[in-house]
């Protein structure tokens, strides 16, 4: 991907690869992976629930790097990349939260109004921070001012990512501890781990495609703005002459 964004052909290639990977992941989740003896079929939510969180953390990492590079070098491409990754990270956070809530209900008999959970709360805060980031981009004075403000939110907002990740060991609440990254190695049967890793590849491919598409949208929108500006300038000069 250059600063002009991915070509339509590259974008199409990424989309096809994502679809194929999603089909393989669906087979691994629903056919290949064994049913959990304790939780039953609902445990299969795990594969997309956890990988959506992984994808969201990576997107917020991209927002962090893009924001730092923009403030440091004034790179418009880095700002555009941060702008493209933030909504995709927010989408993946929404997927993670909604699937987690559906999973938690039958397994923990969970009611968020009555039982506090550190992982759930810190993830909701994470989503709120990046929703705030998008609001800054939308409503702050357009141009450099909005980009600078958003970059600061993008840098400080990232501090909630490690808080969310470590929340299961810092606070002992309902959410289970580390499963794939457990200290003694993955706490999963081999088939479940393989299905998880295949789903990781698929979700990361889908995420990359969405960020690339969003980046291209930003490039095209800028091109349209420049064109409209040129047209109105030529109209004004024609009026004056």
């Amino acid at each position: 991907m250059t600063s002009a964004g991915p070509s339509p052909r590259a974008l199409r290639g990424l989309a096809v690869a994502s679809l194929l990977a999603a089909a393989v992941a669906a087979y691994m989740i629903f056919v290949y992976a064994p049913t959990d003896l304790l939780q039953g079929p609902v445990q299969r939510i795990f594969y997309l629930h956890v990988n959506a969180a992984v994808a969201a953390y990576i997107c917020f990492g991209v927002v962090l790097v893009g924001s730092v590079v923009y403030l440091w070098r004034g790179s418009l491409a880095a700002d555009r990349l941060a702008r493209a990754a933030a909504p995709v990270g927010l989408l993946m956070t929404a997927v993670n939260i909604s699937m987690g809530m559906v999973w938690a209900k039958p397994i923990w008999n969970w009611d968020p109004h009555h039982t506090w959970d550190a992982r759930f709360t810190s993830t909701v805060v994470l989503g709120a921070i990046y929703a705030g980031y998008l609001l800054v981009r939308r409503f702050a004075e357009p141009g450099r001012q909005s980009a600078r403000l958003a970059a600061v939110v993008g840098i400080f907002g990232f501090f909630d990512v490690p808080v969310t990740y470590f929340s299961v060991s810092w606070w002992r609440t309902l959410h289970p501890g580390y499963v794939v990254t457990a200290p003694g190695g993955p706490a999963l049967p081999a088939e479940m781990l393989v299905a998880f890793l295949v789903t990781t590849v698929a979700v990361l491919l889908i995420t990359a495609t969405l960020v690339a598409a969003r980046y291209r949208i930003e490039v095209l929108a800028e091109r349209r703005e420049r064109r409209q500006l040129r047209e109105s300038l030529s109209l004004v000069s024609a009026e004056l002459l």
Partner: protein
Amino acid sequence: MSCLILGYVLGLALIGGYVAMLVRRLLTLEAEVGERRDPSR
């Protein structure tokens, strides 16, 4: 089983909805900047 279905329907609906919005925006912008013929015309 119903929770499994509900979970995946929710997750995939979110992703699918976003993909549909992106594709629509992309096609509109490409038509506007002249990189593609507007399919609605």
